């Protein structure tokens, strides 16, 4: 990946809350440990994070509460000023932007969805969705039309005149989503958008979200503390602990090759057959290959019947365009499907 493709590029980002913000860079230059920081009366919410998010990717940032994931996403949008390091958005260091430039960036390129919705209680649904357009000075008729369009997209037509307190949690978050999409942002931040919802509604909203995501071409940073949600939605997952990123990788690799014991503990309870795609298990073939190939994009669980019924010890796996990805070891695949740990 070249630097040009990177929509968001974090280099050694620190966010430390403490009594003397002006002395922070000098302190952080020494790359202090957690104990050193605590001794200085500081709390590190984000520790030395480097991440690159290419255009069109959906990155899920995942961790327990207090792991710094919400802080990290606020550093990417400069809702918080970082203590050290650099955040570049579309090649521009956002730390150096003036207030006007920053506002312009948010008005044109960014949208954000909040955990507890962050709707304006004194405005009705339509006015809430139109709010970002109003901020950038769009004429009233145009922004109302656009807001109606967005409400239709999230399935809230007919509720335009309702006020936030008159809606259910799921409906409120639909308003939040519509509002964040109203300006057609290139970058979409979602901060635990479904955590405040009931499990059934959450599932429904995830499906809705996947549908939306398919129709839009956006770079997405999605935060969650729910591992299942992360596995369901992510292109890549970054797992955070105590402010640092433990591992940032595809769901397959997170499950198959956890980088640290912490990540391993996280993945221990996961039914790996439902996560791992055949492509991730395929080993490059040495010689010729015979017979029908299985699709590489499918997860093991969905292909279980075919794999178990296949008599070949080595099963060929092909990509969507038909090109050969490699061979799947039947025994290894069976172990995974049956849940045996190596």
């Amino acid at each position, binding site marked *: 990946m070249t630097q040009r493709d990177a929509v968001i590029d974090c280099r050694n980002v620190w966010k430390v809350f403490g009594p003397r913000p002006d002395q922070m860079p000098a302190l952080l230059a020494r790359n202090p440990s957690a104990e050193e920081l605590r001794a200085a009366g500081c709390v590190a919410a984000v520790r030395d994070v480097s991440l690159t998010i290419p255009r069109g990717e959906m990155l899920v940032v995942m961790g327990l509460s207090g792991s710094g994931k919400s802080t990290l996403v606020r550093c990417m949008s400069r809702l918080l000023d970082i203590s050290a390091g650099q955040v570049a958005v579309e090649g521009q260091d956002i730390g150096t932007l003036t207030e006007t430039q920053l506002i*312009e960036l948010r008005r044109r390129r960014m949208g954000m969805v909040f955990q507890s919705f962050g709707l*304006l209680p004194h405005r*009705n649904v339509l006015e809430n969705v139109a709010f*970002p357009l109003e*901020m950038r000075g769009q004429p009233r008729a145009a922004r109302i039309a656009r807001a109606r369009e967005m409400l239709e997209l999230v399935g809230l037509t007919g509720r335009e005149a309702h006020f936030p307190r008159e809606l259910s949690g799921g409906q409120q978050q639909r308003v939040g989503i519509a509002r964040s999409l109203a300006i057609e942002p290139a970058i979409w931040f979602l901060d635990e958008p479904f955590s405040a919802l009931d499990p059934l509604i959450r599932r429904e909203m995830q499906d809705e979200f996947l549908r939306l995501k398919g129709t839009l071409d956006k770079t997405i940073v999605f935060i969650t503390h729910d591992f299942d949600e992360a596995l369901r939605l992510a292109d890549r997952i970054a797992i955070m602990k105590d402010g640092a990123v433990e591992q940032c990788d595809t769901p397959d690799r997170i499950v198959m090759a956890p980088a640290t014991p912490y990540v391993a503990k996280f993945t221990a309870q996961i039914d790996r057959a439902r996560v791992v795609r055949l492509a991730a298990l395929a080993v490059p073939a040495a010689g010729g290959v015979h017979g029908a190939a299985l699709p590489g994009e499918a997860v093991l669980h969905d292909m279980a019947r075919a794999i178990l019924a296949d008599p070949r010890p080595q099963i060929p796996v092909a990509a969507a365009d038909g090109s050969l990805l490699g061979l799947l070891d039947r025994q290894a695949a069976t172990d995974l499907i049956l849940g045996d740990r190596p």
Partner: protein
Amino acid sequence: MSGARAARPAHAAWILAGLALVLVLAKPLLPAGLVRPPDWLVLPFAGWINAVFDFLRDDLGLIHVTRAFAGAVEAALDTTANLLYGRSRWPHLGPIPWVVVAATMAMAGYALRGWRLAALTGGTFVWIAVMGQWKWAMETLSVIAVATPVAVALGLALGIMGWRWPRFERLLNPVLNLAQSLPHFAYMIPVVVFVGVGPKSGAIVTIIFSVPPMIRMTMLGLRRVAPEIIEAGQMAGANRWQVMTRVRLPAARTEILIGVNQVIMQSLAMVVLASFIGMPGLGQKLLQLLQALKIGLSFEIGITIVLLAVALDRLSKAWALHQPAHAEAGAGRIARHRLLLVWLGLVLAGFLLARAVPYFHVVERSQALSIAGPIDAVMDMLLGVVRPLTDGLRWFLITRVLIPLRDAILWLPFVGVLLALAALGWRIGGARSALVCLGFILPIALSGWWDRAMITVYTVGTAVALALLIGLPLGIWAAGRETRAKAVLLACDTFQTFPSFIYLIPVVMLFGVNDVAVVAAVVVFAAVPLVRYTVEGLRNVPPETVEAAEMSGATRRQLLWSVRLPLALPTLMVGLNQSVMFALFMVIIAAFIGTQDLGQEMQRALSATDVGKGLVLGLAVAFMGLMVDHLLMRWSAARRAVLQG
């Protein structure tokens, strides 16, 4: 904390208390300088303050600034006076017929809450008109109508500044604490010096008096806005001005409107009292009637003030809690503005009615109803029955309780009192609290008003003790059942909206004009917060704790004394604190029916427009209040920390 370190403050407190006791017991042997502050120790605070005020007024020319401000206020007052009661000033349109005003208030009540509020607000204004009190009530309201918007704007501006700059807030907080414990009269004297007497100074003193709660509610509201709402505004690309005006302030709407409610209630209380500085209106009428002991007529005015207070309070609270609701989809323009159209129709009908029948424009004095006759008759009958009782009570209280207590307190040597207070402070909050207590009480000793202050202490002390005797059992009884608790809390809420002046009517009726009447007024006024916080404290005891005690076989009495009261104690102390504050305010107001304390001197300072003396007396009262506040809140916080682990 180690055992030795924990024991030390207690030791120091006991040593101080012991010393105080020795000083008190050895009083006959003490040199005069330890019994009362010697003359050379009394500092001429009043002279200094007067010098500062003279400098500000004449040398700095501040009087021109205040005159200009007063001129602007007067212009606004003239306008409202013309509209509301037809004073011949610009715009020469008034008076608006009373039916129109009553219909407007009723519509406001209906729009914000419903029929019951509409009946209360509309009915209040119909009562005022029919009873022939329209002009006085409108004189009062015309000042509130000018003072409230100015006070709200000032409070908002200062509140926003306090929220924006923590340094400014640190400066503001002690000023607000002091301002909220200064008695009403202390505000009046400087205003009289700078502006003179009459409606405009009444309006200005009202503005100054009602700003502090607005500042506090603004800061509270701005701070309480959920951070995600602000972040949503920022991510929508709002700049600072847009975040403030379109996100933060609207999202803090409820708190800000509660602030407006408090401004209105404070204004009403102050406007009524401003009769002392020549403010015409309901307050002045009440003052005259009360001084002439015309019970029936003053009762009528009392009802009006109470109705106005309740109506304005409910209306502004309904506004604060009013939540927007969506109009039905597909509703037309007419349906969406139905209430507005109905109101316009009513106003038009009102004007036509007033044109046709003059009674509906202005009710002449000769057309007014009065229930003073029957009230006087009923009162005479009632007094005939209770007179032996009240006379007996009055005799007993005066000769057996009040006078001995007063003499005892006046007998105490002042150094003994200082040491005892320091001991109390040390016991509650360590050396720092002891110093705070001394810091508040020492200036009073040095001001030369020690005896007067001690009489205030005795009146307040007696009244609060009596209020405790009444309020605690009442609160415990009320908390026994949910429906009862709700009814009593509602009654407390209603009583608290009454301007303090009102409480003097029934006590003057029952006891005449003397010390007992003052104490009785203070007792009633101070009992209200006690009842309220007792009920709330008892009700907020966690149900699991009560259930656990019940399962341990506690009887109802054991439950109350061993579980519920101890857990409710911190809340109760907050009530006691408020009770003391209320009592101090009331004692000063009640001065005009005869006391010899700081209040009486304050009245004298007011009539002589002696700023220095007035402010010294006011600060003495405020310092007593702040000291009690410090001790009780400190104790309550420590206790709460212990209870919550």
